[in-house]
């Protein structure tokens, strides 16, 4: 049993950068902007955060620099898409590649150099609780932050007036404009805030979970986060759950090697993304009109739970996601 708690705690820890980045992306997508540059941003921020922390010897400065990089890339994306009206997808994609190469180029001197790391800081008293202590209170500040940011994001989106504006920006910006809100400025603000979180997530890799810097250090994490946000239906708790599932699957990949003597377990790494797309496709298929029509012919006893499950799994994207805002 203890092994289970230890493993779960490891999952919670391993997912922390993903959680932070996914919350950032959730914020900007909720406001209607897709930040497709995530993978590149995270790499560039991870590199910058590590380099700054290494040269200044100050971890906080490292995280600040990473946040700044994330915010800066988001600003560029905003400038090109929100102000200059280019496709968010195209700009985001190009930025993803550009930042990846920029991180490789500028980060060359820091490759595999030992550097500072976020210290382990168990929370006194709480850390000694049975089970709970292991799960939640024997980590470091970055991981605690990843725990806190989930309810914080959920509260922001669903519990505050600010959240109403954020969600409305992604659903119907024209209505927000009619209420006297500067849509573009607000979208910038959320995109940049989300970008800063993505940057911090990058630094969480290089300064904490995967200490140091190497080529494409966090490679693929950004794309996975993008998929998780969709998988999570743009709802913070579900998105977080997606991150934890992903981390759990990764542990399976390393664990299963001895158990499967003739199976190359390396390929299990690709499974989470594929699985996510697969589940997404299944849910979409199940909620298609044709499938709904078929479901309606089922006996009542089956219909209710089935439709309920589909509805719960279904993820509706913010209605104005990725669309440019034109004044009505």
């Amino acid at each position, binding site marked *: 049993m203890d092994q289970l708690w230890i493993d779960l705690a490891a999952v919670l820890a391993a997912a922390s950068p993903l959680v932070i980045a996914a919350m950032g992306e959730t914020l900007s997508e909720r406001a209607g902007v897709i930040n497709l540059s995530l993978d590149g941003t995270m790499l560039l921020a991870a590199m910058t955060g590590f380099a700054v922390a290494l040269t200044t010897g100050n971890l906080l400065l490292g995280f600040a620099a990473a946040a700044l990089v994330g915010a800066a890339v988001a600003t560029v994306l905003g400038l090109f898409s929100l102000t200059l009206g280019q496709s968010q997808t195209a700009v985001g994609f190009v930025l993803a590649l550009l930042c990846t*190469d920029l991180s490789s180029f500028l980060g060359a001197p820091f490759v595999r150099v030992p550097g500072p790391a976020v210290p382990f800081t168990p929370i006194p008293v709480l850390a000694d609780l049975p089970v709970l202590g292991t799960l939640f209170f024997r980590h470091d500040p970055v991981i605690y932050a990843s725990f806190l940011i989930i309810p914080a994001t959920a509260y922001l989106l669903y519990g505050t007036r600010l959240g109403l504006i954020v969600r409305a920006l992604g659903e119907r910006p024209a209505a927000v404009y009619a209420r006297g809100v500067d849509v573009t400025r607000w979208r910038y603000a959320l995109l940049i805030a989300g970008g800063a979180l993505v940057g911090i997530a990058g630094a969480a890799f290089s300064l904490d979970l995967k200490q140091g810097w190497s080529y494409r250090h966090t490679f693929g994490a950004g794309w996975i986060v993008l998929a998780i946000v969709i998988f999570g239906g743009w709802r913070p708790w579900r998105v977080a759950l997606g991150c934890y599932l992903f981390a759990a699957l990764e542990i399976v990949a390393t664990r299963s090697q001895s158990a499967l003597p003739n199976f*190359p377990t390396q390929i299990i790494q690709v499974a989470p993304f*594929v699985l996510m797309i697969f589940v997404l496709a299944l849910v979409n298929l199940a909620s298609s009109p044709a499938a709904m029509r078929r479901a309606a012919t089922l006996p009542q006893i089956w219909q209710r739970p089935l439709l309920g499950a589909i509805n719960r799994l279904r993820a509706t994207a913010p209605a104005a996601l990725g669309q440019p805002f034109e004044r009505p």
Partner: protein
Amino acid sequence: MAVTYSLPRMDGMRTDRLKLAASLTRPMLALVAAFALTTLALLSTGVSPLEAYRLVLFGAFSTPVRLSDMIMLAAPLLLCAVGLSITFAGGLYNLGVEGQMIAGAIAAMVPLRLWPDWPPLLLWLLAGLSGAAGGALWALLIGALRQYANVSEIFAGLGMNFLASGLALYMVLGPWRRQTSASLSGTDLLPRDLWLPTIDRLRLAPAAPLIALLALAVVWWALTKTRWGLEVRAVGLNPAAAGRLGVAAARRMAETLAACGALAGIAGMLQVVAVHHALIPNISSGIGLLGLLVALLARADPRWLLPIAVAFASFTVGSIQLPLTLGIDSAIAGVLQGALVLFALVARARVR
């Protein structure tokens, strides 16, 4: 993304000098901005940017071998970019091109491993067909996910990329692994006589660039002259309206994906029989993504694919000189390529 084709002009010559000047200024500004950003990065490493640019921009032309290395990189790059220009015309972001290349490479390996004793010519043909089919199939899966399961082609494509690299890892570590070892470095080399005829001193397989150029010509012709091409463009611009006018929109989209996948698959096949002579996990080597940049910069107009693909391939090959001569990382080529596309996007923006 709006892919716009200029239509043949019937209203005579344009002599509007102001417009000409304006159309010149914007790309020049984009160019300057891209180089400014790259220069900034270069300056941060303390090397002479001019020296670095000299190597990146023409390093690939300095010796015959480098030139042929560039050609061998430009060939699959052009194939991918040509394929992507079809999907762009059809209004799709085929981010799955990397996976299609991998799928093509794996499929191409099948006949080569099954019947290594057959006449090479037949085998190459089979490998090409099977590679194209593999890539097309991989692309059609994206189309199916988009069409029936409402998954955006961007994420379906990314998912299929992951799946393809998983498959490649499996083949390399599993059924096709080297004798008594399990390394991700790749399968055993193909028998020498199955390599595409190669000029050894140059590592140049002339068939590769020829295939790419042929693909370019066919696709250019198909997109601009045929009814199919017009229909594809119409679907890309407005699928609903094209459907109303009697174009089978869903079908055309599937066809563009399949065509792109087939070309990417052939690119993967070339990586196997002409470049690596084995299946390696990273057989696509990021060429597909680079192809997306090429296609974005060419704005899906086939005429500009060749010069841009050659330019980008030569940056990549030329940049290998950087770590050797200046001790800096070669990724600066990617920075330059990305910056060019990024600022070119802006140069096209309508300022509001």
